[in-house]
């Protein structure tokens, strides 16, 4: 199976560990992944509220490029995944907007038919590859490792394309497939503070603190997520959280990292060391 890969800015920046582990895991699974040539910034959710038409054209350009190859395009970053999905819905439901965006793309020699499918790596792993086939690649199952599965908001809402909005389970299945154990944790899709940690820290930090505290309380050795912004929010601000509330120090990893570990891939290829809160203790301590 061949896919196109839309990295987006986070996976080249703070989320580099996500890209490394994603590429390493997909290569090991024999899934051919090729970065979308000449992709551009997806505009993320902020730009859409500033100038809708331009943002749809910006995000639409990526779709148009991907469409030339008649392959699914994988967008691991939750914000990119949401924006590309939102663009497809907007262009399908709003003919006026579509006419403007297609004209803009035409001037750049591109066209948009709406054929391309935007996929999430989790959806590909569970639904295209399947848990049985994944099990064959597991070399050292992460026995005894207790994990709190954190989905964040953008992948499940508003378009619950491959999982339930309130109680998503795809990542839980993956965590169990790698031999680890999911703690019962009702805050799977509760807000991680998102960009509030930068703008309204007292609110943003509180939200992040609630998540990590409850995860630890429920016996989780690590939080596993699928969104670079959530990973950054939970992992990056734990020292401020310790000053404001209490020290929790629970590592936050990507599902691709723990899958890589379970597949026996070297930690260096999975960017394990890029986490601010070290995951060594958690991974060793199990």
């Amino acid at each position, binding site marked *: 199976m061949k896919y196109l890969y839309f990295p987006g800015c986070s996976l080249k920046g703070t989320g580099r560990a996500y890209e490394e582990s994603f590429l390493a895991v997909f290569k090991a699974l024999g899934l051919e992944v090729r970065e979308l040539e000449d992709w551009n910034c997806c505009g993320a959710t902020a730009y859409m509220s500033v100038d809708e038409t331009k943002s749809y054209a910006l995000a639409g350009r990526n779709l148009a490029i991907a469409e030339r190859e008649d392959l699914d395009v994988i967008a691991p970053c939750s914000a990119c995944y949401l924006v590309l999905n939102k663009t497809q819905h907007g262009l399908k439901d709003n003919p006026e907007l579509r006419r403007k965006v297609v004209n803009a793309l035409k001037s750049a020699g591109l066209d948009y038919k709406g054929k391309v499918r935007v996929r999430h790596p989790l959806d590909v792993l569970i639904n295209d590859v399947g848990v049985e086939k994944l099990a064959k690649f597991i070399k050292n199952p992460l026995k005894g490792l207790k994990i709190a599965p954190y989905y964040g908001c953008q992948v499940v809402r508003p378009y619950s394309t491959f999982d339930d909005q*309130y*109680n998503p389970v795809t990542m839980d299945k993956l965590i169990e497939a790698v031999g680890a154990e999911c703690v*019962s944790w*009702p*805050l799977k899709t509760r807000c991680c503070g998102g960009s509030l940690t930068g703008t309204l820290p007292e609110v943003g930090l509180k939200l992040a603190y*609630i998540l990590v505290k*409850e995860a630890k309380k429920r016996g989780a050795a690590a939080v596993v997520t699928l969104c670079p912004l959530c990973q950054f929010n939970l992992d990056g601000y734990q020292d401020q959280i310790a000053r404001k509330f209490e020290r929790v120090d629970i590592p936050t990893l990507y599902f691709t990292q723990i899958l890589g570990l379970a597949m026996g891939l070297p930690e260096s290829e999975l960017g394990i060391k890029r986490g601010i809160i070290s995951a060594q203790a958690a991974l060793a301590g199990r």
Partner: protein
Amino acid sequence: MSENKPKQENLPRIGFYVCHCGSNISSMVDVAAVQKYAAGLPGVVVSRDYKYMCSDPGQEMIAKDIKEHKLERLVVSACSPNLHEETFRKAAARGGLNPFYFQMVNIREHVAWVHTDKKAATEKAMQLVSAAIARVAFHQALDKKRVPVDPNVMVVGGGIAGIHAALTLANAGKKVTLVEREATIGGHMALFDKTFPTLDCAACILTPKMSAVKAHPNITLWTYSEVEKVEGYVGNYKVTVKRKPRYVKEDLCVGCMECIDACVFKEAKFADKFNQGLGKRKPVYIDFPQATPKVVLIDKDTCLHFKTGKCKQSCATACDRKAFDFNQKEETKELQVGAIVLATGFKAFDPARSPQYGYGRYPGVYTALEIERLVNASGPTSGEITLRDGKHPKAVGIIHCVGSRDAKTNKWCSRVCCMYSLKLAHLIKEHSGAEVYNFYIDMRAPGKAYEEFYDKLLGEGVHFIRGRVDEVTDWAMTPDEEGKLVLRVEDTLAGFVRRIPVDMVVLSTGLEPQADAQEVRRRFNIGCGTEGFFQERHPKLAPVNTFTDGIYIAGACQAPRDIPDTVAQAGAAAAEALALIDAGFVELEPNTSHVIEDECCGCKSCVPLCPYSAITFDEVKKKAVINEVLCKGCGVCAAACPSGSIVQNLFDDDEIFSEIRGILK
């Protein structure tokens, strides 16, 4: 190939009438212009407009005109033929004109009520009028055929609706066969402890009727059976019923339940469907003490004998009446009946489809039907409100509208949940003294003494919070929420979001069509609405009839409904069936098809077309023949006869071609 248009001189004398329908039609269609237009059309000798054509004076006018002007055809443009075609056919007959020399034009539902431009609406009305006037010239005199009606009746579904319908029909002296899919009749009502608003004990008012069914000489009760096929037509249905094996002879077992005690399984191990899985049962079991018929049955999937073949069959030996028969086979029975009443009931909404309530994730979350069993004295906990871990809840939250009035699941209001939530609140408070919170959007208590029941609950100190619960979570935000289930809700009356910690959550799940509603309705050839409930013939004027004559519906299979309305409908359906049977005959619409013998070349193209096998091939004459009693008048064979040798009465080619010509003149 000349154009078969009747010549100007031999056109029949046509009477034309256009109705104002009060102002329903005249407000959007210029009826005077239509009347004048029709007056100028060939063949029209009388053209009138009138305020209410369907009224008695309106019909009288028709009858009088027919006599005075020797009218040979009649066209009335008013509402839908589904409403008053019969009315005007009768008016024609009263005037001495064959009722099928009449054609109706729908300028209300299809024109006045749906268009906004008067000029365009009037023009369209004129097109339809010109079509009808061109068509009616080709109408032939026809008569409805009379066919005898079989006096026996079948009732499908043994809930309270089926029970009441069967008893009413049996008391009227009709032979009734009541077919029930489960091992006992009683349906959902048998699960309840009390019923609103009077708090009657469900068993007390239901069991007498169940035993009346068992005892009634006119009722044959087939439980653990399902209807497999329905053939024939109104008054003459042949129904095939499949009877699943109980491995116990019904006529021998008296329900002493000795065999259950003697079963090799010492204690009950298997989830008991009747108690919604809260209780346990053995492979040989009986649903509940008052089950009717009071006969045990063996669950083949859990019984050792059927799984391994190595069981000493202690149940059989314990039975002194020798009622066990392990090689009982599935039986198929055929039955002739004249009318069928469908009372197949509803299915409760599966709350797993709304994961935000945590059903299946949090053990403290129950469905309303599970609570019905907990509060029930004959239930698994003999009426004691206990959580799965045996503790007694100190605070209970009841969430209304689970699955109902929700764009993501079922849009409709399930009509009974507010009332049974109030009832459960009362029972829980009475049995456990716990604090009870009801979360509702709108308190719907429309029935007799319903509102008073709600007042009674307000007086009993139940907390009513108006708001839709967004989430049930076991995440404790504050210490007093530790170990509790917290309900997050926007209290729209108080105007802020609240978090209510409770020990037990009750989900008042709504009502939806049975899982197999689609196959069942296709088997009985009736329609269904977009949500899947059975389609009544008319929501207001024929709620228990269907579009298939002789098939009636009653109770929650047609729409969510409480017990009083269900019983009322069951009585109505029984009355409709009685009306059909006691008439002794039924009139079949004459729009059947027939083969013109000397034009038929015997090519057999039509023979395989008819799903009712009304078309056969006469090997001697080498011609196709249509049995006009079996023919339902769909007209498929008339369209498909390659040499145009099959004619459908009232819809033959000339009539339809003339309508096309009339519209496009």
